[in-house]
Each structure stands twice: as structure tokens, then as C-alpha cells.
């Protein structure tokens, strides 16, 4: 890497930071409980719109893992998400009606909040439909993982997005508030992922899964990226560049081993494909606020008419993290 390239990366990082500061101006605090945050707390950052039905399970899931405080941006929800969140004792909430797309799909807002509140904390950035799974998550709290990462001098932790879906039509079983979404969307594709290295930023670019298999089988390049680095020991110099797919400085993207070994990694169970998906698809198509102008929703709308399920004979039913590790979707690395 030449000095010039390093400098260009530095400029990009500075630019992203300035941008997140500017975009952050549109955030209005609704419930600011950040004074509760103490040294060493593990923080969760999220941005959402109209996800009220998912919130009770989402918050409980992460409270159980040991998240100490939630910092959430409400992008103009109209379904009561805001009121529900503002009433939670461990949530700090900001509201904005600015464009999600204009804030690079929420990244700018969260970068700003992370710089302000996340410095020297372990921060987890997830969407309300993502459930973070890591090795031993059924017996060890998230702090066991972050303590171990600290001890190993590791500052970032990768967790691939694993699309979960139900057997049968997506709208076959309605999701109930408070329910574990994986009870319905309990299936996943175990072995059809494709990886390339992004030479510019050093991260891996992972594609595949049920969306590639059904919606994008003819145009694989457009398949959404599944690589994510959601857990980072944050420093105010850091910045996410594109969703949580990659960061600057680039060293943080090296969450994988290149010499044949396996580093420790987790999975984000992506419970997007529930009955709520069809409604969202409709709505998001109108707004065109999502990545690549809602390409995915468009593909979905087109495909869903004729091919109403993602499930296939070789889909695997989710049991636990050990199953994912045996399948090779995540790894314990040298954490035992």
C-alpha cells in the first residue's frame, strides 16, 4: 500500500466523519439516557423505521446477551416504535425525519453517535431484524467475548449475515409481537456462499444464500453483500463506510485469516423474511429509500408472484451456533 493510497484512505475517512457530523445535525434527542453509560459498558446502536412489532423480542434478546445500553435512531416511524422505545429504561432515542438514503442508509447517523458515545466501548451495530450469534452464546455473555477479544488485542469481530426464511410462503405464519422470529423463519442456506476479497478496503465480500438462489440467480453481481463487522471496540477515529460491511481504518476489516487458519467469527441471523416483508416491500418500493433503489424489493415483488417460497429441499433448519460452526458458516477460532 503506497503512501498516496494511505493518504487517500485517510481523506475518505475524514470525509465520512465530516459527513456523519453534518447528517447528525438532523437528529433530535427524544430520550437521552446516555448519562447512565459507564466505563466498559457494551453499547448497541441501531436505526429503524416502523419496526414496533419486532422491538420487544429484539431488546430482550440483546439484554440477555448482556448489552448495557441501546442507542437508537428512529427514522420517523409512524407505528408507535418511538413511544415504545422512549419508555424503555436502557434506551436512548433520537428522532429524525431526514432521508435514510441521504444518510447513506443510516450509517452517517450511527457513525456520529458512535463517535460521541462509543469511544473506547465495545459497540454492536445491528438492525432490528438481526440477531447476533457468536461461539458459546448460549453459555457465555457477550462480555466474555469482548473480554477475550481485548485480551487478544483484537478490535473488530466479523459476523456474516445469514438470511433466515420460513418453510412455505413468507406470509404463511404471521409474526406475533414478542415472539422469537426464528421460530417462524427457522431455515437457511447452508453452503452456497461466494467470497471475494475487496482489495481496496481489505474486507471480504460475501454473496450468496437464498436471495442469490431465487431473486438474483440471473444477475449474481447484484446480490446483496452478506459480510458484516458489527462488533467493534470503537474509537472516535473509526468510521463505517458502507453499512456495517466495512470500516476505516482498513485494519479493522481484517477479521479473517489468510494463512489457512480460522479466526473466531459469528453470524447475524437475518429474520427479514417474515409476513411483515410483503408489507415492507410495498412501502419501500414507494419510498425508494433502500440500497440500489430497492432492487431487492423489486426482485422480490416480481418473483414472489410465481415462486412463493425460499425454502428448498436442501435448506437447513436452525438449531444452534454449534450447528453453524460445524457447517463452516462461523468458527470458534482459538476460543475454546
Amino acid at each position, binding site marked *: 500500500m503506497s503512501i498516496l493510497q494511505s493518504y487517500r484512505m485517510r481523506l475518505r475517512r475524514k470525509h465520512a466523519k465530516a459527513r456523519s457530523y453534518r447528517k447528525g445535525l438532523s437528529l433530535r434527542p427524544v430520550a437521552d439516557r446516555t448519562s447512565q453509560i459507564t466505563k466498559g459498558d457494551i453499547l448497541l446502536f441501531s436505526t429503524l423505521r416502523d419496526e414496533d412489532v419486532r422491538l420487544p423480542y429484539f431488546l430482550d434478546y440483546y439484554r440477555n446477551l448482556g448489552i448495557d445500553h441501546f442507542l437508537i435512531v428512529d427514522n420517523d416511524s409512524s407505528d408507535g416504535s418511538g413511544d415504545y422505545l422512549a419508555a424503555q429504561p436502557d434506551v436512548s432515542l433520537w428522532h429524525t425525519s431526514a432521508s435514510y438514503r441521504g444518510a447513506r442508509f443510516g450509517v452517517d447517523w450511527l457513525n456520529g453517535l458512535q463517535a460521541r458515545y462509543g469511544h473506547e466501548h465495545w459497540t454492536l451495530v445491528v438492525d432490528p431484524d438481526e440477531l447476533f450469534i457468536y461461539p*458459546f452464546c448460549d*453459555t*457465555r*455473555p457477550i*462480555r*466474555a467475548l469482548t*473480554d*477475550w477479544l481485548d*485480551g*487478544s*488485542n483484537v478490535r473488530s469481530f*466479523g*459476523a*456474516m449475515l445469514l438470511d433466515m426464511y420460513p418453510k412455505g410462503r413468507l406470509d404463511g405464519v404471521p409474526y406475533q409481537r414478542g415472539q422469537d422470529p426464528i421460530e417462524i423463519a427457522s431455515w437457511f*442456506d*447452508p*453452503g*452456497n*456462499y*461466494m*467470497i*471475494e*476479497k475487496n482489495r481496496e478496503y481489505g474486507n*471480504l465480500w*460475501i*454473496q*450468496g444464500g*437464498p436471495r*442469490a*438462489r431465487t431473486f438474483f*440467480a*440471473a*444477475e*449474481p*453481481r447484484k446480490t446483496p453483500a452478506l*459480510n458484516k463487522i458489527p462488533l467493534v471496540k470503537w474509537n472516535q477515529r473509526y468510521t463505517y463506510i458502507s453499512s456495517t460491511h466495512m470500516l476505516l481504518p482498513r485494519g479493522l476489516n481484517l*477479521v*479473517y*485469516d*489468510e*494463512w*489457512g*487458519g*480460522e*479466526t*473466531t*467469527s459469528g453470524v447475524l441471523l437475518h429474520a427479514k423474511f417474515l409476513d411483515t416483508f410483503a408489507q415492507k416491500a410495498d412501502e419501500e418500493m414507494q419510498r425508494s429509500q433502500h440500497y440500489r433503489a430497492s432492487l431487492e424489493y423489486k426482485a422480490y415483488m416480481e418473483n414472489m408472484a410465481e415462486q412463493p417460497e425460499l425454502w*428448498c*429441499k*436442501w435448506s*437447513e433448519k436452525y438449531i444452534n451456533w454449534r450447528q453453524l460452526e460445524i457447517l*463452516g*458458516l*462461523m*468458527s*470458534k*477460532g*482459538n*476460543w*475454546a
Partner: protein
Amino acid sequence: MSVGIVMLVHTALGRAEQVARHWSAAGCPLVIHVDVSVPDKTYRTFRDALADLPDVRFSQRHRCEWGTWGMVAASQSASKLMLADFAQVQHVYLASGACLPLRPVQELIDYLAARPDSDFIESATTADVPWTIGGLDAERFTLRFPFSWRKNRVLFDRYVALQRKLGMRRRIPGGLKPHMGSQWWCLTRRTLSAILGDPERAAYDRYFSKVWIPDESYFQTLARKHSPQIESRSLTLSKFDYQGKPHIFYDDHLQLLRRSDCFVARKIWPQANRLYDAFLTDAAGAMKRTEPNPGKIDRIFSKAVERRTRGRTGLYMQSRFPVETRENGLTSAGYSVFQGFAELFEDFEPWLAGVTGARVHGHIFGPGRAEFSEGACVVNGALSDSAALRDYNPQAFLANLIWNTRGERQCFQFSPRDNQKIASRLASDPNAQISVISGAWAIPLFHSNGDFTQIRREAALLQQIEAKNIERLRAGWAKARARIWTMAEFIEAPMEPLQTIVDEIGPQEQRGLPGLPPMVDLAGFGQFLQELKNQGMHPHLMGNFPVARGVEDAPDSPRKPYPVR
């Protein structure tokens, strides 16, 4: 007669206090060393908290950075205090604040009382130990290490390189033979006094203070000088990862630790409440004795190191993406590639599946779709037959197929008509068994009744592609087990090559092949080749087919019978 505990503490003081109380309750005197980096206020609170215990002392505080002399200095001053203040102590046990006694302390006291002259200290010469963090073993003792490995890695490495280049070597003080081992030991009063009171100690200390990771060698080396009876093992269960960091025990290790036969384990995660609750109880509530099985702990932790350093062969995933040449195997298992067979034999695939029991696919790199066995459009792992998806990343497609079907041999057809992007990958994969009947791609052309100019053009193209592929398979870098026959050669005696291939795939139930699949009708093939030649093409990969040959066979036996061996 009793055991004194020297305890080195730097974090999780609450847990250290709990463990100190446990030792003390069993009548063990304690000397506690608290790292200088602990703030004074915290230190005082900790001291006050333990004020009610009778035989607890606090020794002079040092800075204990990993891999530096501080750890030894701390052990020295604490041991000295122990020997001076507690005359009844016969053995001194070095432990840390993150150590947890697994068996009732009385058992340890009895065990040591029965072995009054034994020093329990792991101690081996550098030539005999496998720990070489940073590639340093003997050099730990012959180079100088003034820079911190953790904080100044660059300076550390450069200074090592410089010393190597200049051939700088330190002299090891006379009479010492360097030994290394776990830093957690249990020494007798006699040995420890001899080490601390050695007339040469000043020289030794000076020397070891520049050795790398002296806490793994100072006492280990000097015990060899002074001890009459060394038991070279540590009573403390401690497992290290590939970087020399200790593995940490959590609540879910409870059953594992119960089955260890060690007295003490480290390092325990401070918030492992179940472990602390289970082991820090009185003797009555202590472990229900289970059959010791320390080997299991060993296996779990050595597997972790193996996974971190070598990983699972043939797996490409989010945290294992090896650069070229570092894969430890491109795919996870052996597989077979057949080129020209499906063209030459009718129903070759079902025949092969029947003979070998393997899964036999068609042209999985074929132009229209991946022709999986039995016409499946999705196979193991939810791998799709879409040609677009496959061609987007053919290497991932192949690696996925082989990984997803672990335990079941995969065979597939390949031809110059297929996507050639995978060809060099196949050639370089030692797991690939590739069998080629060169020129057999011409058979479908021969059977087609298309426009001959078109056929001639296609033949030229396919021949070019196959020639290139054969060149690859014969290249110096190729690692696949490749066998190549010309079509003419193969037809002469097809039985033997097939037998070899099938034998290699796996053990067969019956000896010998049950018979060959029927060969396609080749009557007139020689004439066809001649026609191509007449059109100015030069079909050379098929071998020698006389013009007349096909014609002769034609009248009586269009399908040539082959004898069953």
C-alpha cells in the same frame, strides 16, 4: 508442615479476595503481590478487605508486564517474605489471582506432605519444547530483549533481526543450562531458599532480566541447579493458545474441570460465577468425585490451536480465506473429473455410479446449467444449478460442492464445451483425479447432421481448448492426478484404464468391473476426421483413426462388444 501460597494479582481483585479466603480457610499462609499498575486506592481497599485473615502478607509491588522481568521480581520478593514470615511452610505454591483450586485444599496439603522433597516445576531444555512464540526458543537466552513484544513489536522484531545479523550472542552465566516450563510452580522451602540465597544470584538476575519471558525460565533453570528431586510438571492446569496466551475457563467448562485431576486451574474468567460457586466451597460440598479425564481438556484446547493455525481444509468462509498457496488443500476431499467418457460411452454416468457408489454428476460446468446428478436443480448446501451463479465464482462453486458433500465421493463430467475458467483450478488441485480421453468431444459433432463448415469451425475451437487444457494438466505446477489417453488409444483397450480409475476412487465390493457400458456407434468416424482434414483442419487429439476402420466394423457390429474380465 503446610503449604504457603504466593499469589500474583493484577485484575479482578474481588475474585482474588474470594480465592485468598478459600486458601486461608484451609490454613494456608498467603503472600499477595499486587501489580503496581493497580491504583493505590483500589489496592488499599483490597488490603483492608483481607485484614481479618490471620496469615496474609502483602509483598513489595513490582510492575508485571507480560514477558518481562517484573513477574520474576514479584515472585522473588513474595517468596522471600513467605519463607521469612512463615516458618512452618514446607512448600511454596505460586498462583495467580485468576487461579482456582479445583480440589479441596486439604488434598493438596496431604499430597505435598507425602512428597516433602519434591519440587513440582515443569522444566525442559529449549531443544525439547515446542513453544516457540515469535520463532524464538534457544535465542531467548542468547539475545537481548529490551523492547516490549506487546507494545513495541516493530522495535522488538528489528532488534532481534539486527542481533542475528551482527551475530551478537550473550554468554550464559557459568554452570547454568537453560530450561523452560510453565511459570506456575510449587517448590520446597529448601530449593526456594537455595535459589534466593544463591551467592551468584546478582549475576543470574542481571542475566535473566534481559532474557525473553524470564518467568518461564528463571526458576525452571535454577531449580535444575539446586533441586535434589524435580517432578517436571506443573500442578496448575494451564493451557496456552498459539500465541502463548493462556486459554480462559468459563462456566461451560465446569464438567471438564471436574474431570481434571489438577489441583489448581488458570485462568478463570472473573465473571464465571458457576465455576467460583462450584469450586470455592467447603470440602463437603466440593466436587463429587468423578473419574478424572484430563486428556479431554488437552484435546479441546489443542484442537482450538489447530483450528486457529491450520483451519478446516477446503473450507472458504468469512473468517478463513487463505491467500493462494496457503490453503492447505484447495478442496476438502477427493473427487473425479471425466473428460470424453460421457461422449464415448452410452449411459456412462449411471454405470459409473453403479460401479463406484459415488455421486456422478453430468457436466456441472456445462453451458446451460450445472447438470447435477438425477437432474436436480439444487443440491447439498442449497447449491443452485444456475449457470450465472456458478460462473460468477466458479472456484467457490466447486469448493462448496465438495465441502457440502463431505463423506460422499463426487464425480463429474468435463469437456471443452464447458466453462474453462475452472480448468486451471482443477489442474492445480491434488484432490482432483482427472481422466481425459482426448478428442472425444468430436463424437457429438460426428453424430450431428449440421452444416459442415459450422462443424469444422467448432471442431477447431474445441480442439484448441482441449489442447490448452492438456497442456495445463501436464504443466510443472499441476498437482491433479491426471491421466490422458487419445481416443484411438483408449478404444484399443478401455478395460484397463477404467479399472485403474475405478480402483482409485475407492474399494469395490466385487473384483473386476461387471462389464462396460456400450460404446457409441463410431462407424464412419475415421471418414469424418478425414473430412475435417480435407477442409483444412488438423484433428490431432483423437490419435490415429484410419479412414477405413469405422467402415469395416459397420456391417456386423455397430456396438463393439467388450469382454468382461
